[in-house]
């Protein structure tokens, strides 16, 4: 038997390129459906877990999917806004904890998430370094964001302008990093967290400048008209919020009317959740309430339908590949007629020749199986990092 294996091995080694192509083709055919299944299963589990951990989402009327994707995964455009008074209204019902989310800005590729301190407790996000948000102008980085921005407590990060060509748009704001979250394996790792007021300042709703009523600000005063002071073009708005200029920052108007992207509502209990849904559904309140778990289930059902088509296509390709491989082997036997004849003339029994040819096929299949198993193990073990690395640029 060893001689059969030896001869088969020598043949495969001599025809190494042909062998490599065969092994690669069979490996792909074995690995692809397995990997697809694994990735889909893991992805759907995690999508569901994030959605299930977010009992209710409240946003402006519009696409529930867009609301869920932006609020849970900080993906895509920020949804149409609510007003901040919605947070107070939800609290006043006594049915749920309301956590505001203000989205839409970025620092480089990292999403900026304006929220309240409750968010960190709600998501179970402990700090790895530094402290939590305390004052406007501070930022806490997710673990991946800290790596990407190469920043930690004591450093500063600068928000990205909304558009390079809009010179009248909002200015970048320099934020002080005060903490870095421990890795959570969630979209929170990628985010830069700020207080919702900081998010408003980034949006240009709030701003800071020298006190125009101060006699020292005369260089920035165009005119004083009774109790009104008019600033001139020399009035410089602060680009950084520091303890020294904090008091000079202000918002125009009542914060109750300021925009937020969504509210995560955490009901006191299941009954409260149902009651809260009832309050917002079917009313003309201009507010939409959704259960993210349901939305993600619908989305995943669509994805799994697509998966069936993909698997069917893979099966067809596999059948074609197997047929091609069979053809390759048959043609190979025909091409090797002289070699087989030589083996017979030097005393090899026909069964022995068949065993050698069979061993060659078995070795190819064995090598493909080992490679496919190795790749599957890699996906299982290092899938998160692998997919993050492969897909990050496309996603952001």
């Amino acid at each position: 038997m060893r001689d059969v294996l030896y001869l088969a091995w020598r043949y495969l080694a001599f025809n190494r390129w042909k062998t490599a192509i065969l092994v690669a083709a069979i490996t792909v055919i074995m690995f692809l459906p397995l990997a697809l299944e694994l990735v889909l299963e893991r992805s759907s589990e995690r999508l569901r877990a994030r959605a299930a951990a977010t009992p209710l989402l409240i946003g402006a009327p519009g696409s529930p999917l867009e609301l869920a994707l932006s609020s849970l995964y900080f993906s895509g455009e920020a949804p149409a806004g609510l007003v901040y008074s919605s947070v107070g209204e939800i609290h006043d019902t006594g049915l749920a904890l309301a956590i505001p989310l203000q989205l839409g800005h970025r620092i480089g590729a990292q999403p900026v998430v304006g929220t309240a301190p409750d968010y960190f407790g709600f998501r179970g996000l402990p700090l790895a370094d530094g402290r939590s948000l305390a004052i406007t102008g501070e930022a806490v980085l997710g673990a991946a964001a800290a790596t990407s921005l190469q920043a930690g407590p004591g450093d500063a990060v600068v928000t990205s302008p909304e558009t390079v060509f809009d010179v009248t748009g909002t200015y970048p704001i320099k934020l002080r990093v005060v903490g870095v979250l421990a890795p959570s394996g969630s979209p929170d790792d990628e985010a830069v967290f700020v207080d919702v007021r900081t998010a408003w300042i980034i949006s240009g709703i709030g701003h800071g400048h020298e006190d125009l009523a101060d006699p020292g600000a005369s260089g920035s005063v165009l005119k004083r008209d009774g109790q009104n002071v008019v600033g001139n073009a020399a009035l410089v708005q602060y680009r950084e919020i520091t303890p020294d200029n904090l008091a000079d920052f202000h918002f125009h108007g009542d914060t109750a009317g300021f925009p937020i992207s969504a509210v995560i509502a955490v009901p006191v209990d299941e009954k409260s959740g149902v009651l809260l849904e009832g309050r917002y559904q079917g009313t003309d309140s201009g507010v939409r309430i959704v259960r993210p778990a349901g939305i993600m289930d619908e989305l995943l059902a669509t994805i799994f339908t697509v998966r069936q088509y993909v698997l069917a296509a893979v099966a067809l390709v596999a059948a074609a590949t197997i047929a091609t491989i069979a053809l390759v082997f048959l043609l190979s036997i025909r091409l090797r007629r002289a070699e087989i004849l030589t083996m017979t003339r030097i005393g090899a029994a026909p069964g022995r020749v068949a065993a050698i040819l069979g061993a060659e096929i078995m070795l190819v299949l064995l090598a493909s199986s080992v490679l496919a198993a190795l790749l599957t193990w890699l996906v299982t073990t290092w899938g998160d990092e692998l997919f993050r690395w492969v897909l990050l640029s496309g996603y952001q």
Partner: protein
Amino acid sequence: MNRKTRPKVSWLALLFIGTASCGPSDDAATTAETTAADGHVPTVYAVNYPLAWMAGRVGGDAVEVRLPVPDGVDPAHWQPAPETILAYQDADRVLLNGAGYAGWIRFASLSPGKLVDTSRGLDDRLVPAGGTTHSHGPGGEHDHGDVASHTWLDPTFAIAQARAIANALIDLAPDRKTEMVERLNVLQAELTGLDGALAQAFSGLPAAGILYSHPVYQYLDARYGLAGRSVSWEPGQDPGEAGWQALAQRLRERPAAVMLWEGEPLAATADRLRGMGVEPVVFETGAARPAAGDYLTLMGHNRERVARLKLVDKGDAH
């Protein structure tokens, strides 16, 4: 979903999102609604002494009331350190005075669900502070919405704030509701008594008018119809010759016989005021914790000092 976002929501991206998302959730429904029945005494932080005092009076031992403002610091202008703000974040409730009091609140990261604005619903009773407006850019003329903030100097306003505090505390410890309602009733009766006593004291003031050393008495003024005017003098500082001249001008336009001070003015200042026919009277606001006694005793002393003015001959006041 609009066309612009659709490419970003490709299922490939979703796979990544799903792969990257597995954050565990805390028992999120666990809010601050812990009660004494759980063996945990809810912690309540306040932004000034009157609120802390009222919370302590109503809550008794059902809640732990904290006021981390250092002694000798005016809570209205205090800027807490980040660590102190984190302590406020950990509280079960944070009692706000409302009316723009304690500017640091505007820039502190606090959970909206824990904030109790004790002036909420009392907008019609807020007194404008009369600040300067300004214009720059396309936003047009605006001010920063300033209203006078020392609301508790009107005891009837303080009663409304005490009710708001009681509601918040009952929310935290519903099993202690009965005793808290009883204590609230006692507190309301005491504040009502204070209101009557202050009304009586101020009714005996000289008719010439009243001045305030600092613009913090708007609610006292509004409650007792004093029609006073404010300057911005500090008790421990000489107002300077310009300040004296401005005061003399004011007195020529509209005489005054009394000036209320947050603290004891410098002896030289007091003497010069008396020389101008204005009697300085200390009327502490009680925003910070008093060295001795409590809010009621402090207001009692204020009342006594005002009542003593009755003994001053109105003719001698000028």
